[in-house]
């Protein structure tokens, strides 16, 4: 019996000894970190690092964060973040969830850039020097962009520039000035490393780095009371780098403002840098540009209408303020208003065309009574800037119009002028949320405006006017260009002038600019007119320290609650809670949020 046990044990030991390799783990489906030691790995890491720039085009939160609660936009009926972002209520605090997602996206981008920058430093001969230089420039450019969004949104944030593969819980917030210095260092590197053009459309170029640098210098240099580490030379630098873009002749303004938003003209001569979205949803990681959703109003519920891909899926999230509609534009001469906003819709649903009927004091002529008000393809909705005085019998007035007539009296949070810049009629179905439009971050018109503002701030109004007029001339109606019927029906234009150029009425002189009560506010408005809905407004208001002033004046929703501390968003509680050690709250959180 002992022998049996002995043999059994011996057999067991043999089996076990033979199985030493049995517990080795071989990874098949996953990719491990050593991938970054190869050129292929670095290229894949670069692509991943570009991804976070898509974020602001992918979700309602960013659209709201950058536009709501400004002088130009307030909340539509279904706006998800109206109380926090437009009304500045107490729920805009550190536990406001989407803020953390926004924060995470940027830090993920920074970590990817840090990781690849380190990998590029280590790869040695594994990759051609010239290529390494370009990729280094791209990563520096992206990292600067991510930090630029963070510093403008939150002020002081942790500044991390090396990758970390281990557990780290200790982060101090860096001074705003240090963050700007890092951004400028990165962008300066990018301007020297990046080529004029890249083989792959969509990669960062030298022009993009110049533009970003100009904008960063302008932002830092705009500070008067804020402490951004601003230097006297910042404005010069802004002008210099903006001019580098302009004088490089690599970019050209699109002749007609309207054509900028043509979905078939995305790769136009004016684009300096844009987040890339593919027509193949999978390539967008099953996301896409969703900005087309947020600016729409309930056109589809109106008589004679149905929802189409052309007119979009109206989510009623962002509604222009009365300031934007009534005051901001010289609507008669500046073509940008009617090229930016959709104000009439054509009947696309024969089944629901309304009939002429008696309403209140209005009785239709006998030959019309009971007949359809309009035909398929005719105007069925018309939104106008008219305001009827109190006491007007509106019911009868509306009934007397051969379309759904929507003057200011009838506009509300579900009925308003619709920003058409982001519409995407190429989506496969009328309810598809995923759109394919590239997300333009920098375009030449903005470069001109940066240059103009910089020169103006320096007191060089002649150059400022020159730069500005490039943009304003393009904004004017051209000779022979047909103006919209609003021109002579509503805006007080003469019918005879319907194809006359307004260029001379739009251009400004150095004297005009010098005479302005506030050149900065004028530029703020000009940027509003040109870049309306392009996710620049919030940053422009905080950059110029005019947020509180403008919101109080023009946004009734936010006027009551907006406070100076709202220039920064609250640091997400998730970040603070996870710190170890955590500093006193004044150290970890922005003032006003604790």
């Amino acid at each position, binding site marked *: *019996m002992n022998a049996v046990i002995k043999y*059994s044990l011996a057999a*067991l030991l043999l089996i*076990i000894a033979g*199985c030493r390799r*049995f*517990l*080795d*783990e071989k*990874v*098949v*489906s*996953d*990719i*491990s*970190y050593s991938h970054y030691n190869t050129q292929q790995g670095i*290229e*894949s890491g670069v*692509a*991943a690092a*570009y*991804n976070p720039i898509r974020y602001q085009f992918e979700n309602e939160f960013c659209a709201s964060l950058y536009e709501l609660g400004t002088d130009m936009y307030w909340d539509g009926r*279904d*706006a*998800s973040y109206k*109380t926090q972002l437009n009304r500045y*209520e*107490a729920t805009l605090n*550190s536990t406001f969830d989407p803020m953390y997602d926004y924060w995470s996206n940027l*830090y*993920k981008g*920074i*970590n*990817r850039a*840090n990781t690849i920058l380190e990998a590029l430093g280590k790869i040695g001969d594994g990759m051609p020097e010239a290529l390494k230089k370009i990729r280094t420039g791209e990563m520096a450019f992206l990292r600067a962009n991510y930090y630029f969004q963070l510093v403008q949104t939150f002020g002081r*944030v*942790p500044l*991390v520039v090396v990758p*970390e*593969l281990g*557990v*780290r*819980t200790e*982060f101090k917030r860096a001074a705003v000035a240090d963050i700007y210095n890092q951004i400028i260092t990165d962008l300066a590197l990018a301007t020297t490393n990046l080529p004029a053009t890249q083989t792959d459309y969509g990669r960062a170029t030298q022009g993009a780095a110049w533009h970003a640098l100009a904008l960063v210098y302008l932002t830092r240099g705009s500070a008067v009371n804020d402490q951004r580490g601003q230097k006297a030379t910042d404005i010069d630098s802004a002008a210099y780098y903006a001019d580098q873009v302009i004088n490089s002749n690599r970019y050209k303004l699109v002749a007609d403002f309207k054509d900028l938003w043509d979905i078939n003209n995305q790769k136009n001569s004016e684009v300096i840098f844009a987040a*890339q979205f*593919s027509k*193949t*949803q*999978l*390539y*967008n990681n*099953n996301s896409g540009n969703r900005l087309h959703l947020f600016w729409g109003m*309930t056109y589809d*519920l109106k008589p004679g209408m149905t929802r189409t891909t052309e007119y979009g899926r109206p989510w009623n999230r962002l509604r222009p303020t009365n300031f934007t509609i009534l005051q901001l534009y010289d609507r008669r001469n500046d073509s940008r208003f009617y090229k930016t906003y959709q104000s009439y819709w054509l009947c696309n649903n024969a089944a629901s065309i309304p009939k002429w009927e008696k309403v209140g004091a209005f009785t239709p002529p006998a030959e019309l009574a009971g007949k359809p008000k309009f035909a398929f393809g005719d105007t069925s909705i018309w939104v106008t800037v008219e305001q009827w005085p109190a006491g007007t019998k509106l019911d009868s007035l509306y009934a007397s119009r051969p379309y759904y007539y929507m003057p200011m009296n009838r506009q509300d949070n579900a009925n308003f002028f619709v920003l058409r810049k982001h519409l995407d009629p190429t989506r*496969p*179905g009328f309810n*598809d949320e995923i759109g394919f439009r590239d997300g333009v971050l920098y375009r030449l018109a903005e470069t001109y405006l940066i240059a103009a503002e910089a020169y103006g701030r320096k007191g060089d109004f002649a150059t400022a006017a020159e730069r500005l007029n490039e943009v304003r001339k393009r904004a004017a109606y051209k000779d022979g260009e047909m103006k919209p019927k609003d021109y002579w029906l509503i805006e007080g234009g003469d019918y005879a002038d319907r194809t006359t150029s307004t260029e001379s009425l739009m251009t400004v002189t150095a004297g005009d600019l010098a005479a302005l009560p506030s050149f900065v506010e004028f530029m703020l408005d000009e940027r509003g007119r040109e870049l309306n809905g392009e996710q620049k407004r919030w940053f422009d208001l905080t950059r110029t320290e005019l947020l509180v002033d403008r919101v109080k004046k023009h946004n009734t929703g936010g006027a009551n609650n907006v406070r100076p501390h709202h220039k920064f968003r609250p640091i997400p*509680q998730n*970040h603070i809670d*996870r710190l170890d050690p955590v500093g006193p709250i004044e150290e970890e959180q922005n003032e006003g949020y604790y």
Partner: protein
Amino acid sequence: MKELCCYMMKRAFAMYCLLLLTLPVPAQDNLTVKGVVKSATGEPLPLVTVSVKGENNTVTTDDHGRYVLPLKKAKATLLFTYTGYASQQHDVTAPATLDITLAATQANMESIVVIGYGTQKKRDLTGSVASVSAKDINAVAATNVVQAVQGRVAGMNISQDAWKPGAGSTVRIRGSRSITASNDPLYIIDGNPMSRGNVTINDINPSDIESIEILKDASATAIYGSRGANGVILITTKRGKAGKTTISYDGYEGIQKPLRTIDVWNAAEYADYVRDAYRATGKYTSPTPDRQQDQDLNQFNQDPYVLESVLMGYDDQGNYDPSKVRGFDWMDAVTQQGSIRSHQLSVRGGNDKTKTMISAGYFGNKGLIKGMDYTRYNIRVNLDHNINDWLKVSTSTVLTRANEQAGSNLYVLARQTNPLASPWNADGELVLNPGNDPLALNPLLDIDGIVNDSRKDRVISNTNLEAKIVDGLRFRMNFGYDYRTARDGSFQSTRSTARAGKTPWARYGGNSGTDIILENLLFYDKTLWNDHRFGITLLQSIQTNRFETFATEAQGLPYETQEFYNLGSATEILSTSSRLEKWQMLSLMARINYAFKGKYLLTLTGRRDGSSVLAQGSKYQFFPSAALAWRISDEQFMQDLSFVNELKLRTSYGKTGNAAIGPYQTQGSLSLLRYVWDENVMIGYAPGTMPNPYLSWETTAQADVGLDFSFFNNRISGTIEAYHSYTTGLLMPRKLPIASGFPEVLTNVGKTRNKGIELTLSTVNFDTKGGFRWNTTVVFSRNKEAIVELVNGKEDDIGNNWFIGYPASNVFYDQKVIGVWQNNTKDMEEMAKFNANGHNFKPGTIRLADKNGDYKITTDDRYLLGSRRPDWTGGITNEFAYKGFDCSFQFYVSQGAMGIFDKGLQLNGRQNMLDIDYWTPDKPSDKYPMANAGWLGPDYIFESYYQDVSYVRLRYVTLGYSLPAMVRSKLKTSSLRVYVSAQNPWLHSKFDGLDPEGAQGFETPSTKTFMIGINAAF
């Protein structure tokens, strides 16, 4: 007694065979004992083993309870044994007639209990093992076997995950100890460890089960080493028996209705609610319903049908009668009467050489929500064959096919759809947006428009070869094979709420998994010098697991009739994926059982597990345990206390692990992200998970003290037990400040504690000569789990919602609702102070507790409100029997847990919602805020959803009747029982949603089932 012990011991292994063996010996009239064996109720008992003590001479009773036993000598001691009944022995002198009445027992110390890698007599157990028999399992009409065990085992907390057909249950043995790793127990089916816990248990047909053993303490579970920390559930299936072949049929048919339903506004109430919401914004000025203002409300007039429905409430004079408002009951339209059915046929039989059990089963459950259905088919073959007198082979194989139609969440949509609107347009077609509201989608579209179809096939097979080498030494080789494959297909039509006009979408995916286990076991049993009994078990085992998944998702399918069966025709592939995961384990285990004089018992075990998922260099871990038991009732000084039948004190201590680390987790990985240059795709890889070479298993150290008792002729029996366990090296996804790029990392830090008490008490309340019998079993368990230590020591980790002294998960830490702001001076003054700090409080909005009194509601005002863990749970089962009638019912209680009923209250006069008492200026509620069309939803509404989810549930009531022998013989059946049963017919709870267990939101309502069934054997 001692003699009997020795006798039993010698035959410890062969017992099953011998007990059931019928040896045809020619009858010798002069040396024959005969008689009838009956139960206390007078029912003849078939298949009772009658044996001569000390001889290999055994018969079993026939269908009428009769036996005839030829003796070799005139004088003999006869032993009557029958599972579930107290054994008896009688001295006889042949020839004789000996009629016996056997008493059923709850605490039969002689009964055999399955333990890890073997069996043991209950009297010899040192660990904490609870056993549930086939009879108890079949008392409940359950989809899966754990549902049937609910309320029967102290320390085992089972809760239904959901009530849709095929839904699973969550099982916790002695609470949860792990934060991120699984808390599911390890399931062992006929010796095969199941690698995917709860997920797979649905594949086992409850009717095939002979017994379930639940191993709770470290002594019982430590032999499963790295997988034993959450307790072990051993499932043993029925096997063939020697003797007459029995064919049995068990079946039931039942209907199902919702136990509770959700009350939403009807059409007229909804119209009132919309008006109130617009009164708050000033748009609706009339205090009473007003025809003109109704016509002006967008919410009514944007759909002519809705407006018509509202205006029906007015007569020509403009008088309003709410009962005339036209409405549609959406909840009713998406529900149906459910049904449940099970049919099972089995054949059991064999001889002393070969024994067989073959069964085939069908289970079907049609859900309460349209489109939900679950069907399962099983075929099982269990075979035992003695090759010769020292070698035998056994196999168990089951084939399972389960089809599930998961339907869609219609109830969620139906409760929010406008009751004034119609699902159909004038042409009778389903509309997309009822009430013309773009946010409202027609749930009826999904009944045909959404398909979620999954099919699972599975083979579990287990074969072992056992050799008796010398007396007391046995070798067993066990080969287990578990293969499962699942296919999930989903389809969403253009006309479904999920697509709402987008192109059709489909997904086709699946997975397959294979577990192979090979075990070598040596058993050695020896008794030395009469008083020293040893049992040694040695194990060597290797296991491999392989798991593959694949899926393709596409949209733009040109032919809807193809559903998900032709993804190749899609215009766009959204994603396609495949993955392989593998892990291996190597184990060695040793166990020593030692008994001195049969009353001092010791068990020592140790297991060493090695696993591929751990980092190189730290792949092995050792898990020891020890247990002691003292059979006090066997001591001399106890012999005077004749009312004590059994008294055993036992205690154990040991360590077990939780091997819930997935493969490759120690190595870290990159995650795939694509980017495009214009239209050229670039595959990107971003840092995904952080590598963590130090990752290891969690270890639980548990101490246990228990007392098993049985008094007054086994009339009162039970167990009382207390335990204390510490889990260290807790795996936690430690949340990190994402500034480093990683949101979290899985690490072994922290410590949790579980302590609790368990009580099981069985009583025979009545056992009259007239045949009336009433048994009661009560189980009670109380478990307190708490975090002891975290990454930073004894500091709360708010970022992760972890608090020292509170359960590790599902703790609610939030602001506290204390009512609704009212329109009175006091409240107005208070509100003004808050509003000065940026709040927007007004009468009719939610009032939160301002914990620190700074007139600002911030994160500092959060409270620890409660947790999902109940303070205690219990079950009480009563069984009555009288002359062929039997009746049983069970109550189940869960007390002290908190839950969330997310009512989704938007209170903005748009979607329909629960019928609640919201605040209005005239009827100022203190519970719910006002309705206001101007907001998206009330602030802080979520904080009002926490509530107590304690409940008492009547789990089942069953009334059965076993037909008397006379009728049975005419029907040629050996047993025939018919029964009616109500499952889950009654619930008491303050919870105001559907069901505090498994339906805290708008999921499928819990069911009450009424059924009739038959158990027949031929």
